[in-house]
Structure formats: C-alpha cells, structure tokens
C-alpha cells in the first residue's frame, strides 16, 4: 500500500481553496466595475436640475430627465398593478394544486414565458395594444413589462407558499373557516416576506428593460402624466442619448444610467431588508 504524500495533499487542498476563492471574487467584479464606471461617468451629470428639468434641444447645455424619471416610475407602477394580482393568484393556484393538468400547463407556460426574449414581448405588446389602440403609449409599455413580471411573481409566490406547512391550513380549516379566508388570512400572510421579496425583485428586474419599451412607450421629451400617451422613460433615454453624436447627451445618458442602476440597487437592498424584517417563524 502506498500512502499519499501528506505535503502533496495539502498542496492540492490549498490550490483548490485558492481557485474557489478567486472565482468567487471574480464573480463579484462585474457589478463592482459597472457601479464604478457608471458612478465615475455619471456623477458629473447629477444635480438638482437633472432630476427636475426637462431635456433641452441639442446645443443648449443642461437639461434633465424629469420626464423620463416620472415615466419610468409610472410605467413600472402600472405594470406592477397588472402583474401582481394575476401573478399572486396564479401562484396560489399552483401552490395549492401541485399536480393537475391546469397547473402543469400553467407552470410550463409561465416557465417558457420567463425565457421569452424581451424584444419579442415588446413586439407582442405592439401588436396587441399599440395597434389596437392606435398609438404608442406608456400603457402599452406597462403591459409589456407586466408580461415580463408575471412569471417572476408566479414562481416566487408558488415557491414561497409551498414552504408553508400544510398543518397551518388544516388548523385554519378546522376552525370552520372558509377556504378563501384561510388563503388570505393565514397562508398568504405567512408567506408575505417571500412574496413581497419576489415582487420587488421582479420590479427591479423590469425597471431597466429597454427592448419591450422601444415600440410601446416610445419615449417623449415632454412631461406627460397620461399613461395612454407616449411616455419618456430612463432606459430609452439612455439608449437614444448614448447613440447620439453629441457629447453633452452622452453625459446625460451616463447620468440616467446612474439613476437607473441606483433605483435597481435600492429595490434589491430593500427586498433583502423585507426578507429579514418580515421573516415568519413557524
């Protein structure tokens, strides 16, 4: 019998640990670099004016992205109002019926929808909403984003509710409570932190989506609060201004990028806080 040499084993072990650690560090780098560059390039554009002023024509210095900021918030808000009720209820259904024909079909569709390229969702929204309503609108953008949010909300709701012990439901039903009240008063509250977390991540995910907004929200250089009219939004501002040949517009694009990254980051941090704060102990 030949004993492996201890020194060699130690060396292998240490090599392995070094490799794993290095790769973990490398995985964290892209985000750090993105934040670094966006901050470096964008911070100079940020001032009070940037948030409250409307864009200025080419050649005039200054101007802001107030319209796009408001537009993004409105579009995402309306998208959430559409996606959350559907997603929540579908998630409840899937968690309650783990294995029947409808739930399996729904689960499959939702999974495929999750993988559908966002530009295709945009084209779909164009066909369904823009064509039939006759104009580009913030609403059609919201619809496209809602379609993208739906699978995320459905899946996180289902996954969260599956972890709620059945005994809670049995206890509630044993008190003579009707099924729907058991769902709303016991099951959903018990999984609220997970569900809210999923919703916030879905919002963070779609806030920066550009492709679905290209042929829907369209963009608008003026302040518009009517969701049924074309609407400015941050991703499109970044897209259009970054593609332009003007230096000052590039600066605005960087500034808008910084705002967008900041919003997404904030949503992510907030969702972590929700998980911690609302955690339910069984």
């Amino acid at each position, binding site marked *: 019998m030949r004993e492996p040499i201890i020194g060699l084993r130690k060396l292998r072990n240490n090599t392995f640990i070094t490799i794993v650690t290095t790769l973990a560090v490398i995985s964290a780098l892209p985000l750090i670099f993105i934040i670094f560059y966006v901050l470096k390039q964008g911070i100079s554009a940020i001032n009070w004016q940037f948030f409250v002023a409307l864009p200025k024509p080419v050649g005039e210095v200054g101007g802001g992205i107030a319209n796009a900021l408001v537009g993004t918030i409105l579009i995402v808000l309306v998208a959430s109002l559409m996606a959350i009720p559907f997603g929540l209820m579908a998630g409840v259904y899937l968690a309650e019926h783990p294995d029947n024909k409808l739930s399996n079909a729904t689960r499959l569709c939702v999974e495929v929808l999750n993988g559908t390229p966002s530009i295709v969702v945009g084209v779909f929204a164009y066909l369904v909403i823009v064509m039939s309503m006759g104009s580009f609108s913030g609403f059609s953008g919201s619809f496209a984003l809602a379609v993208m949010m739906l699978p995320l909300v459905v899946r996180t709701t289902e996954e969260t509710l599956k972890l709620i012990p059945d*005994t809670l439901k049995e*206890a*509630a039903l044993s008190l*003579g409570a009707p099924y729907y009240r058991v769902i709303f008063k016991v099951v959903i509250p018990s999984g609220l932190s997970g569900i809210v977390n999923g919703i916030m991540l879905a919002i963070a995910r779609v806030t920066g989506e550009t492709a679905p907004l290209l042929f829907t929200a369209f963009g608008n250089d003026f302040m518009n609060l009517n969701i049924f009219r074309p609407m400015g939004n941050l991703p499109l501002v970044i897209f259009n201004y970054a593609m332009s040949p003007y230096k000052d517009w590039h600066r605005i694009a960087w500034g808008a990028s910084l705002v967008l990254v900041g919003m997404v980051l904030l949503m992510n941090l907030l969702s972590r806080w929700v998980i911690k704060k609302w955690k339910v*102990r069984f």
Partner: protein
Amino acid sequence: MEGAILVTKDLKAWYGDNLVLKNISMSFPRNRIIAVMGPSGCGKSTFIRCLNRIHELTPGAHAEGSVKLDGDEIYSMPAIVLRRKVGMVFQKPNPFPTMSIYDNVLAGYKLNNIRLSRQERDEIAHEALQGAGLWEEVKDMLHQKGTFLSGGQQQRLCIARTIAMRPEVLLLDEPTSALDPISSGKIEDLIVELKKQYTIIIVTHNMQQAARVSDRTAFFYLGELTEYGQTKEVFTNPKNSKTQSYITGRFS
C-alpha cells in the same frame, strides 16, 4: 346508545384505491374521553380526520358511510358548519405564525368573519386561555407572537384556539407526541379537565396515556376496529388477540 353525541356507521375511507378504513361503526358518549389506539398505519388518524372532514384536503382521499353528529349526517352538512362543532388539535403545535397569542385564540372568529366587541374578545380570550391552562403563563404577553412560546405552551395555545369556538367535540391527533414528558403531563391533566364541557376523541400511540386519561378505548388494526370498550376492560381483559399482543408489547 343513550347520550351518544357522535355515531359512525360502516365508515370506510380510501386513499386512492387503497381501502384504509373498513366499516367502522362506533358511538361516542357525550362528555367522555375516548382513546383511539393502534399500531402505525392502522388508520386511526384517518379515522378522526374523517370526523371533521379534514381528510378531504388530502388528494385522493375519500370516505363513505354515515357519521352522525347529534343525529345530523356530517357528510351532508357544509364542512365549515361541521368544523365549528368538531374542533381539532394536531400532532405538531401549529399556532398561526403571523398572529399574536391573543389573535391566535380569537383566530376562529376572525377567520369566520364574526365581529365581536372589544369586551367579548377579551372575555373569550381569557376564558379559552384559562380553559387551556395557559392564562397565568401568558397573561402579560398576550400581544407577542404565539410561535415564541415553548412547544407545550404552543400546544395549549392550539387547544385554547380550538375551545374558543366552543365546539361540541374535540379531536386530538396525538397531541403530545411532539412534546417532552412534563408538557405532556400538563396536556393530559388539561384533557381530563376539559371533558366536563366537551366530548374528546384522542388518538395516541402511548398506551399509558390512553390508560390514564380515557374512559373508553378503541383499538384499530389494519383499518379495522378490533376492540372498543371501557378502558379498564380493554386493558385488563382484551377480547381480541391482536389487542392483547399490542398491549403486552408484542408488536407496535
């Protein structure tokens, strides 16, 4: 039988195609404690789950036969009406995790959308917690979450939650099997106390427990009721050989 509150006749239950309860005919006298015993998988849990129709939650489970509560057929009344009259306490304590102790006790009213005045709520909570022997321990922390209590306290909270609805029958599905001996002892004392007001059907693995608390004992084996009688009789002079070998520890 005179004074029987619950009577089953030819009750059968299936999981899918699997017959797990075979023609159970029993009657449960009012204000008594009836222990249901038997080896694992004998159908005793299924049996009491059929008595408040909570078995209907299990996919593929269904029951046939007759169960009468005060003369009314339970399978033809709405389940939500039945379950208010036949409460259930489960093996693992399961207080509602989002609710305080106080709200847990009143959960039945909240879930049934029954509006109560502040005073009524306080009275019911006090009475139910007192009834479950928990009042002294929790009276200063009523608005803390129920899940922060110990396992035994949680189980008594679950009993309080059930008796707050003033049911007629209490079903206890191995209520002490997840608890330490001291907590179990408290629950046993409580069960004996509760029979003044309720009819109690308790499923238990623990023969000593059955012998200590129950008035009558039923013995289930492979889905059949093999023996049912006064607890003393069943334990000292079992008629069925299966019961005898179970009680003497020859199988479990």
